[in-house]
């Protein structure tokens, strides 16, 4: 079944490393990590985060890269080789990769929409449109903010709840089509084109982050934001939720269990040093998160400072108008003392004005993560920076690159297994097969362009993109260490890199990482099960609008949620059961349980002379 000789190869090591880094580094590094850092005690959060990286993230990463490189097959072939009982793990990886591709590319489509809209003056999310009869500004916009309105109404055109599906939003459909076209053009020739694309998509975000960092540090309020972010609150380490969040953040951030990393490393020459690669990818991923959070929080600090100043200015205006004080006689500097004087002399009038309480800390606390951070908070901050269009374009180009490079790994984790399962007819060229998969994925992800699309995306993100990965990873590590055998695995690594994994790796693989994963899985599921599943709905007719209306999921949606969490991991027990039934306990089919090294692997000349199209 496996044909290692026809395997594509990386043109050079840099492309391989950049692709793996690009897969691991995604939008979550920019919009999830800074938020977690902020709510979990700033600098103190780095401790559980780094511990999780060292004891959970790096061992899993090294494991996947090593088995891919050794067995030289994608996720299906690899797990079938290790044990036919574990064949389901590969199929599960493929299913979750596919489901994640669907909603992840929708996020890329949203980024594209904002990118297209950044080329105008003034930016469309900076002002409210007029209402129907042109007498006043649109009510929904006035009640919330222009950025909120642009996101919820003009981008998503969101329905009040998940049951109301609404219709397909044509502008979203064409943005989604563009996103899938871009993914397709990068995948047309497999890793040849991906390897070239990653030179841009992986390096560009770092350039943009640096530009933003330099700009952000010169803005007023940046220091407040950074101080707020990094001030450690050591007591928070007592809270188990913090450790759980750190572990899940590392886990989901590294993109293990997708199968993509196994496939990428299977295209490596077998003497590649995968230990160093794993450490490099893991460290770069975490370093990127930290770097991004410095930029993000400088800008959030600037925004908080701006909000604080506007709050004070509106109070000053109210007082100036009420007490007929000279224009600009009351400024930010003498606000406190003048307010005190006015309050002591005319307390009733001052009370009548209902002045807003202005506290910088409150504004800094208004944090957001995910799409809220990128599309609402950040876009508001960008409006207040001089030259908004440039910053908006740069920001969205960066998010687009981050999303695209992750999509490479997602989709590779789907395409390669499909080929290994021999589901692709022999006559079909790769470009046609890739096109069909992209088309099917596009059609399925049209759900997310409906009026209720965002609600569905959050469902997918929360339930598909979480528990199944923990389960798959647990079976991966147990499968390699206990079924394949740690001794055999160590010998394989020795054959590849010339040295055996040291005591740290062995201890992690044997005990620490599986235990860590098990604890995280149990804790995560129990925390989720505790909370009744509900979601924040954007409903303009809601009493507390613009607060979101927290509604519980209806039963049929809940059934779908259970299906989405359970179905991707169902192949694991199913395939094990099937193998048990048809082939007995030995599990032998036509495949020997020990992977045969092919003649060409031993003789490196074959692969180096191979026609690697577009090498160099």
């Amino acid at each position, binding site marked *: 079944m496996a*044909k*290692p*000789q*026809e*395997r*594509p*190869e990386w043109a050079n090591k840099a492309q391989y490393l950049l692709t793996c880094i690009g897969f691991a580094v995604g939008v979550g590094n920019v919009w999830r990590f800074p938020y977690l850092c902020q709510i979990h005690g700033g600098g103190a959060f780095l401790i559980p985060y780094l511990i999780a990286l060292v004891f959970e993230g790096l061992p899993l990463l090294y494991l996947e890269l090593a088995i891919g490189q050794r067995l030289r097959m994608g996720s299906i072939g690899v797990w079938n080789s290790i044990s036919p009982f574990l064949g389901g793990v590969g199929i599960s990886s493929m299913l979750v990769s596919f489901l994640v591709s669907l909603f992840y590319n929708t996020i890329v489509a949203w980024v*594209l*929409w904002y*990118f*297209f*809209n950044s*080329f*105008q003056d003034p930016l469309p999310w900076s*002002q409210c*449109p*007029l209402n129907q009869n*042109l*007498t*006043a*500004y649109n009510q929904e916009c006035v009640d919330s903010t222009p950025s909120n309105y642009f996101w919820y109404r003009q981008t998503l055109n969101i329905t009040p709840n998940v049951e109301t599906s609404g219709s397909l939003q044509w*502008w979203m459909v*064409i*943005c989604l*089509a*563009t996103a899938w*076209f*871009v993914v*397709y*053009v990068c995948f*047309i*020739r*497999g890793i*040849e*084109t991906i390897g070239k694309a990653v030179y841009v998509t992986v390096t560009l975000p770092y350039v943009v982050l640096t530009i933003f960092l330099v700009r952000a540090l010169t803005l007023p309020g940046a220091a407040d934001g950074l101080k707020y972010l990094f001030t450690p609150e050591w007591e928070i380490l007592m809270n188990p939720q913090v450790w759980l969040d750190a572990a899940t953040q590392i886990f989901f951030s590294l993109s293990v269990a997708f199968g993509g990393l196994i496939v990428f490393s299977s295209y490596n020459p077998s003497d590649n040093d995968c230990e160093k690669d794993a450490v490099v990818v893991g460290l770069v991923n975490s370093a990127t998160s930290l770097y991004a959070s410095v930029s993000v929080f400088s800008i959030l600090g600037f925004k908080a400072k701006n909000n604080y100043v506007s709050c004070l200015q509106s109070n000053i205006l109210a007082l*100036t*108008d009420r007490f*007929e*004080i*000279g*224009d*600009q006689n009351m400024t930010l500097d003498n606000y406190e003392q003048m307010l005190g004087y006015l309050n002591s002399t005319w307390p009733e009038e001052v009370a009548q004005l209902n002045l807003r309480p202005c506290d910088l800390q409150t504004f800094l606390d208004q944090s957001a993560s995910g799409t809220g951070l990128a599309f609402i908070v950040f876009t508001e901050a960008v409006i207040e920076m001089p030259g908004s269009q440039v910053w908006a374009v740069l920001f969205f180009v960066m998010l687009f690159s981050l999303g695209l490079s992750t999509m490479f790994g997602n989709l590779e984790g789907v395409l390669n297994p499909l080929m290994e399962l021999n589901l692709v007819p*022999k*006559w079909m*060229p*790769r*470009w046609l097969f890739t096109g069909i998969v992209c088309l099917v994925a596009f059609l399925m992800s049209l759900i997310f362009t409906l009026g209720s699309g965002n609600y569905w995306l959050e469902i997918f993100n929360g339930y598909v993109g979480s528990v199944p990965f923990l389960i798959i990873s647990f079976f991966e590590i147990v499968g390699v260490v206990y079924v394949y055998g740690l001794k055999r695995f160590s010998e394989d690594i020795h054959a590849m890199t010339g040295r055996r994994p040291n005591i740290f790796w062995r201890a992690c693989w044997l005990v620490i990482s599986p235990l860590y994963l098990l604890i995280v899985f149990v804790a995560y599921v129990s925390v989720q099960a505790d909370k009744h599943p509900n979601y924040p709905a954007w409903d303009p007719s809601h009493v507390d609008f613009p607060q979101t209306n927290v509604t519980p999921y209806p039963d049929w949606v809940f059934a779908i949620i259970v299906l989405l969490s359970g179905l991707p991991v169902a192949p694991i027990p199913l395939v094990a059961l099937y193998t048990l039934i048809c082939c007995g306990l030995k599990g032998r089919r036509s495949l020997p349980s020990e992977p045969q090294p*092919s*003649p*060409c692997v*031993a*003789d490196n*000349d*074959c*692969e180096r*002379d*191979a*026609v*690697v*199209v577009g090498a160099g």
Partner: protein
Amino acid sequence: MLGALLVLLGTTACLAQDLCTDETSEGFKVRLSIKTALGQQAYVWNESEMFLFRATLAFAMRQHFKNNEYNVSSILVCNETQRVSFHFVVLDPSDSTQLIQKTAVEAAVRKSRHRINSAFLLSDGTLEFLQIPPTLATPYSPATPPWLIAFGVVIGAVCAGIIVMLVSSLLGPKKGKGEDDDEEEGGGVGRNGIACDALDGACNGGFSDDDRLTQM
């Protein structure tokens, strides 16, 4: 005679001034924020500026009613504060005891709002007529939404890229590179196009696919 005339004028003026109070229903309160608008270039509000205001308002009344009898004296101002804010009422030029209706004054001000603002280098937000809400400026909406243009450029480039790549990969094998039809490019196919596993024994890199020398 002269004395009587003077007394008469004086009383009229007093009476007229009595018409301008903040409780009057026909007047408007005006508020200026000069320093906010102009910063360093702010001018000082003084008698002359007030005169200009009254003249501008008289101009607005003339424009709206097409009646050239409105004069600076038709505009009465009172309750001036340090803020700078004050009340004003408009006297009927034909009968100085009557005030012009509020709605009429509002219409006149609305019509010439831009001219009044410009006379003082201010805007709707910094020269406020408190009971006259500013007309909302229609946001500029171009014929083609700009985002469609950006979209068109990107999708055009991407489609061109796809076509170029597909055409070159379809034309590629015809140039005799010896690749398989199944596009797993770069595999260890061996120089002469035969898959390694079809051969007995190991691959021999010495075989080359150089057919320049073997053209028959």
